[in-house]
Every structure is written in C-alpha cells, then in structure tokens.
C-alpha cells in the first residue's frame, strides 16, 4: 500500500523567509502528486499538482514543487512566505497516469505558522 510521509509536523517562520516542506511517498509505479492547503476555517484547496512532464511544477500564490523520482519526493517550496500563508499543508498521491481519477493517499500534514 502507498504511504506518504511529511517529516515536518509544525514549521514556524518569519515573513519573507524561504519555505521548503518535505514530502516522500512509497509507491514505485506511476504516480500523480498533489499539494493541498487548508487555511484556517476553510476547506482543502488544491495548491499544485504533477501528472507528467516538467518535474518542476508551479502553483498558485507563488508556490512550486519539484518531483524527484529517484528520491520518491515532491517537496513544496516558496522563496518568500507571507503571513497569509499560515495554513496546514497536505501532500497527497494517487496511482496511475494522465491524472487518473482515483483515491488519494494523504500525508499527516504540516502546519505552517508565519509570524509577521
């Protein structure tokens, strides 16, 4: 069975600091990779996704993630965080190619707190 590991449970940064959140998955076949964000009091929203092609994916709000197949990783990055980035971030994976529409396996999430 797949598993997703997010190594950082809680990250605290000051505004303008750079961010990198780790995500590793266990499945060895073709995967689709996602980062979702949950702002306080809101529902899960898609931040970015990787299905195929360029392993460096750009998402909303200046976030990007890099798929490194040899490391089974899909780390999330942002060069300069803002207070409004305070949220919980979830990495998720599903099997298949072409964005096939199937169940997601999530990591436990990383809570990001950005201090003004």
């Amino acid at each position, binding site marked *: 069975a797949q598993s997703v590991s997010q190594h950082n449970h809680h990250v605290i940064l000051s505004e303008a600091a750079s961010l990198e959140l780790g995500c590793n998955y266990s499945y060895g076949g073709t995967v689709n990779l996602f980062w979702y964000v949950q702002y306080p009091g809101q*529902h899960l929203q898609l931040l970015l996704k990787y299905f195929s092609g360029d392993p460096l994916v750009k998402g909303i709000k200046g976030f990007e993630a890099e798929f490194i197949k040899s490391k089974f990783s899909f780390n999330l990055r942002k060069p300069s965080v803002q207070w409004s980035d305070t949220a919980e971030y979830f990495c998720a994976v599903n099997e298949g190619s072409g964005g096939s*529409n*199937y169940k*997601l396996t999530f990591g*436990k999430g990383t809570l990001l707190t950005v201090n003004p």
Partner: protein
Amino acid sequence: GAGVSQSPRYKVAKRGQDVALRCDPISGHVSLFWYQQALGQGPEFLTYFQNEAQLDKSGLPSDRFFAERPEGSVSTLKIQRTQQEDSAVYLCASSAHAGTQYFGPGTRLTVL
C-alpha cells in the same frame, strides 16, 4: 453551485445513534469520494463512486458505514450505531472523469 457542499456542517450524536451525512458534488462531476479525517491526521479514503456505481469501498472501517449515490449526483454517508471512535471530519470530494478532486467543507461529527 460553484463548489462541493456538505450538510450538516456539524453533527453531535449520542453513542448508538445513526447519522446521515450529505454531499452535493460539483454539477456534472462523475466521480465522488468520501474521506475521514481524524484530529491531527490527513484525510483517509473511505469510498469511491463513479456515477451511481460504488467502485471501491475498501476504506469503510466497518459494516456500520454505508454510502450511496442512487442517481449519480448527491451522495449520503450513513453511520449506524455510532461509536466514539467515529468522531472525525468527514470530507466529500468530486472530480470530472479524469482530474483533480475538489473538496467540500466537511462535516464534523462528534459522538458523545
């Protein structure tokens, strides 16, 4: 509507009661998913529908959990004889035939 909606948003049940949680997916979305999110954890898959067909129910934790989507649109997750360990946020997501899953706000179930 513009997004996935769920009702009720909050539900308190006494142990042993039955509950029904509703999900209205994005119009036209073929696929519908239910997830359970315990406190401090990521969402965990419960079940998957393609139109009215339940194609995967491998994540349902016990036979007390039952889901249906009779007309291929609205779905209901039913939990019979609720237990304290059922307390969680229940998330519904929908997607087009091949694509991203869009999540609803969830129903927070508390079993006393």
